[in-house]
């Protein structure tokens, strides 16, 4: 083994180790968000955990090539959106589809809402209605809806994460919100 080549290789390994250390920090910060987005999208903890791992594994492999053109959050969400798309396409395990076809009375995770007792029942009903509405949205609309109203991303970030044009994102959001409003009875 040539010493120069060996040194280069060791340097490369050290860079790799540094990148791994940086990535550890990314994981600690962004894992909860990615997991939450996937969990709310799929409503299946096991699938969400598995997909989040896949997402971060994919992100780690691409980490060296990440140039910071978008924020790390947007970049990770884009990977997550693609993972979800592939997951839905390939495995067809989506809770949303099952729920929609079965028309079941699913339990909505509204128990943790911190509202005043008098508003409690009304708020829970409205929130359950939003969950139900989100269930019935087409996948792309639901993705855009969740990125906006759960992950609190703006239009440009959502466009970057989904690969859609800003105008298309706006249209999806508007339609999704209309559907939600109809499901919630106009929220009157």
């Amino acid at each position, binding site marked *: 083994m040539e010493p120069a080549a060996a040194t280069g290789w060791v340097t490369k390994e050290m860079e790799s*180790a540094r990148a791994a250390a940086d990535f550890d920090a990314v*994981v600690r910060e962004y894992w909860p968000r990615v997991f939450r987005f996937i969990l709310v999208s799929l409503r299946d903890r096991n699938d969400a955990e598995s997909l989040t791992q896949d997402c971060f594994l994919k992100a780690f492999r691409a980490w060296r090539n990440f140039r910071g053109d978008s924020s790390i959050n947007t970049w990770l969400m884009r990977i997550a959106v693609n993972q979800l798309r592939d997951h839905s396409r390939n495995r067809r395990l989506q809770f949303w589809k099952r729920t929609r076809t079965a028309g079941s009375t699913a339990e909505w995770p509204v128990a943790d809402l911190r509202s005043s007792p008098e508003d409690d029942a009304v708020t829970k009903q409205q929130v359950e209605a*939003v969950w139900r509405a989100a269930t019935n949205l087409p996948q792309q609309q639901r993705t855009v809806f969740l990125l906006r109203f759960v992950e609190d991303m703006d239009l440009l970030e959502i466009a970057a994460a989904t690969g859609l044009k800003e105008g298309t994102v706006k249209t999806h959001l508007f339609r999704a919100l209309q559907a939600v409003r109809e499901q919630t009875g106009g929220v009157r």
Partner: protein
Amino acid sequence: MTRHLSDEEISAWVLGERTPMQEAHLAGCRECGIRTGRLQAALSGFRESAIAWAAREQHAVPVPTAPRWWQPRSQWLLAAAALVLMTAVPAYRSYSAHLSAARERTVLDAAEDTALLNQVDTQISRAVPGPMEPLVPLVAWNTDANDTHKGNNETNR
């Protein structure tokens, strides 16, 4: 603007598309304020419930605090192995060369020792001291002659 906001306008409002006229109307219209506020509250409640639910689910499956599965540990092992090889191979080569030289030296030394031993053996095996060696042929001849004479005497007997 005197008319109430339409459903579409309320959706657009929630999405951030607001005109000064709508803002002025909302500031003074209780009904539109309630409708808009309820939709926003429902969406906030949805977000809150999603975050709480995800946090609860994630508590059961915590973020890997010592993430290992994406760390290239095998690469570290390879790097360590390479370093060991990088130091061990030259050391072995040096040791091997040293060993070979030592063997050659041993063979040469053995040959020299053998030669010396032979020389010593030759010297201590001499029948007479070195200075008397020129006389050895004479003595050797006399001995032979004596032996011959002795043999003749025995025959005569």
